[in-house]
């Protein structure tokens, strides 16, 4: 089992999906163990692929963009290569970061779900849909060509729709699922256009060939910039960046483990993955790369501000995810693939940890709003501790994972990007620390605000608690994978910096003491501010709210962007639709279809009198006809 057989990885969850979706009613426990075992198998197999990758990689140390197109299978070939659809896999360092993340977090989520979703309706379908999602995600990260990637991209979008709308009996859930799908669809159209544009010039969908073509100047700057911007549109949609970020907060209507897996660790990073994969092409068109940078920057700041005032635990985490994805795009915007992928890696662990932890809280208290929580750390020690570890990681406190990856991004930004961008991102980092502290304090500290819920609260069963602990361990230690010695311990040639290179300026992971100290100070400032405002009964926070109710409202209503979009839909889109509907009714239907029939009727009503039934009339008609023919024949001659 090596890199060549990597196609087996998505095949296992697909098989699980097929079995569960069709037969879950006939399998004991509705087949949840099948999903878990399948995922465990995938995790183990990923280990084998990793080993194979390592041994090949050692021979290619410091070779930029080392990867191999190990396996391909021709599906449709028109015109001997003019239009080639194939199934191809490509394994490189980026893939090797994604595979363990996806499979391990999925495994944790699946195990957790056995406890969380216990007794729910459509339990079997839940596991089937989750397996389908993992299959599509795995397919996405191993894809060697853009068309296959697009297929998997749509697949994860579909899975997201199915899972957000899992509780479809609830109107809000059905609406949220629709919103998610339609919003990402807008991005997907852009992605498809981009793919087609790239194909038009290069004649291929294969990613490495396209990168090669772009680097060797096959494209004109304008054309390539436009194509990459379209491609980025897909990433914007899928990774919930501004302006297509609106679906992610609403997507919290889905079951919490789904939020942990799809909307924190895996699907939403598909956009980051795409841009990272195509980064060599982005480097050829700096304008497009700048768009990536500034989109990420804006989104990061915006989302952090919204997370500051959100009152539903999951919503805070959703905004946090959007913000952190913005961080990753900022990194890509300055060409720092290592930093972006590293942050993706650590973020997956601590964010899914936070989501699962919030699920624990929701499961125990039945409350999602912080107005019904408080003081839970005594009642749910494991959840509280792991949640705090996750928060510290998110805030960027040293030794926890988030510190290393965020530090790396800020460092690269300072070195390669404009100064003001660094300032903005640093401010966002402080905001991150503030809102994560806020969340922890409001949920686990202070006096319980809903005594009834508090009394009923209990720690989660082991099946839920163990994944929390494992993820917490990772949230603590995964940062150290950046350090060379740790990497060598695991048989790599070095730390994570050795794995992924950023074009020409590949560098080893450096820990600049001054920089690290600055970053730590920023995080601590955030922690302190958060404590000042929200500790105890959070009086200061309420006062702050009173200073500017308009500002507060602006943030709570998410900058009124949802209202704006609804306005656009109501006026522009439905307006256009009204015109088209008028055209369809009056021109096509009434004039075309009905009109045609009416015309026939009109003439028929008048011509029918020719049928007199009298034979002499018919004889006359025959004679006249023959006469006409003769004259025509004579005329021609």
């Amino acid at each position, binding site marked *: 089992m090596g890199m060549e057989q990597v196609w087996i990885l998505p095949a296992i969850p697909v098989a699980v999906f097929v079995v569960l979706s069709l037969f879950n009613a006939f399998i004991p426990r509705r087949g949840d163990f099948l999903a878990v075992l399948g995922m465990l198998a995938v995790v183990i197999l990923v280990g084998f692929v990793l080993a194979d990758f390592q041994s090949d990689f050692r021979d290619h140390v410091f070779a930029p963009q080392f990867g191999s197109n190990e396996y391909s299978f021709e599906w449709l070939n028109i015109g001997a290569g003019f239009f080639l659809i194939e199934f191809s896999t490509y394994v490189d360092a980026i893939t090797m970061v994604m595979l363990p993340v996806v499979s391990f977090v999925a495994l944790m989520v699946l195990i957790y779900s056995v406890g969380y979703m216990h007794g729910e309706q459509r339990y079997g379908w839940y596991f089937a849909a989750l397996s389908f999602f993992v299959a599509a995600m795995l397919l996405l990260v191993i894809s060697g060509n853009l068309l296959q990637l697009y297929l998997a991209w749509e697949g994860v979008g579909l899975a997201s729709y199915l899972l957000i709308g899992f509780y479809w009996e609830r109107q809000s859930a059905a609406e949220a699922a629709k919103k998610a799908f339609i919003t990402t669809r807008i991005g997907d159209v852009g992605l498809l256009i981009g793919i087609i544009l790239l194909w038009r010039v290069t004649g291929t969908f294969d990613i490495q060939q396209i990168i090669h073509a772009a680097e060797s100047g096959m494209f004109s700057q304008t054309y390539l910039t436009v194509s990459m911007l379209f491609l980025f549109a897909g990433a914007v949609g899928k990774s919930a960046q501004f302006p297509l970020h609106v679906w992610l907060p609403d997507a919290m209507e889905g079951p919490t483990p789904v939020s942990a897996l799809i909307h924190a660790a895996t699907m939403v990073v598909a956009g980051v993955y795409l841009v990272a994969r195509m980064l060599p092409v982005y480097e050829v068109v700096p304008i497009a790369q700048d768009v990536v940078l500034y989109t990420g920057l804006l989104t990061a700041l915006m989302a952090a501000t919204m997370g500051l005032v959100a009152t539903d635990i999951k919503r805070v985490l959703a905004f946090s995810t959007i913000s952190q994805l913005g961080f990753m795009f900022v990194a890509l915007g300055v060409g720092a693939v290592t930093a972006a992928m590293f942050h993706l890696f650590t973020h997956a662990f601590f964010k899914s940890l936070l989501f699962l932890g919030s699920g624990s809280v929701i499961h125990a208290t039945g409350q999602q709003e912080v107005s019904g929580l408080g003081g839970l750390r005594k009642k749910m020690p494991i959840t509280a501790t792991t949640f705090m570890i996750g928060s510290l990681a998110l805030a960027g406190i040293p030794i926890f994972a988030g510190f290393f990856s965020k530090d790396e991004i800020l460092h690269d930004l300072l070195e390669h990007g404009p100064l003001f961008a660094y300032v903005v991102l640093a401010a966002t980092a402080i905001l991150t620390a503030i809102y994560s502290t806020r969340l922890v304090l409001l949920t686990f500290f202070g006096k319980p605000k809903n005594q009834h819920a508090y009394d009923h609260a209990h720690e989660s069963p082991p099946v839920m608690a163990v994944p929390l602990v494992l993820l917490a361990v990772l949230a603590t230690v995964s940062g150290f994978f950046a350090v060379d010695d740790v990497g060598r311990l695991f048989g790599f040639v070095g730390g994570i910096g050795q794995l992924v290179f950023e074009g020409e300026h590949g560098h080893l992971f450096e820990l600049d003491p001054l920089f690290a100290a600055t970053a730590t100070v920023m995080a601590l400032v955030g922690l302190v501010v958060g404590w000042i405002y929200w500790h105890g009964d959070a009086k200061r926070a309420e006062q702050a709210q009173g200073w500017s109710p308009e500002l507060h409202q602006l943030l709570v209503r998410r900058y009124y962007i949802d209202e704006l979009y609804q306005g656009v839909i109501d006026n522009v889109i439905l307006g256009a639709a009204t015109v088209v509907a008028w055209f369809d009714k009056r021109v096509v239907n009434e004039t075309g279809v009905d009109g045609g029939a009416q015309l026939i009727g009109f003439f028929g009503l008048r011509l*029918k*009198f020719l*049928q*007199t*039934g*009298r*034979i*002499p009339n018919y*004889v*006359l008609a025959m*004679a006249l006809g023959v006469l006409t023919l003769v004259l025509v024949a004579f005329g021609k001659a």
Partner: protein
Amino acid sequence: MIPLENFLILSGILFAIGLFGVMARRSAILILMSVELMLAAVSINFVAFATYLDGDAFNGMVFALFVITVAAAEVGLALGIVLRLFRERRTAYVDAADTLKW
């Protein structure tokens, strides 16, 4: 020899009389007679051409023979129809069959 045109004019006049008869007669039998007259006119036409233009070949005369045969068969059939009409309507007048109208 008489010029060919004379025969053709004769044929034409006979055909016209026959055509008139078909269009203007009420009695079915008379219509049939007019049809026969048209067929005869056509035969004269064919034979005239055969004699004057064809030389050794006599296609026209052969065709005239065919016409006569067909005319005979057709009259037999037509009289059958006329009989049927008579039995239905008690008259041989063609305007009795006028129900297939708008």
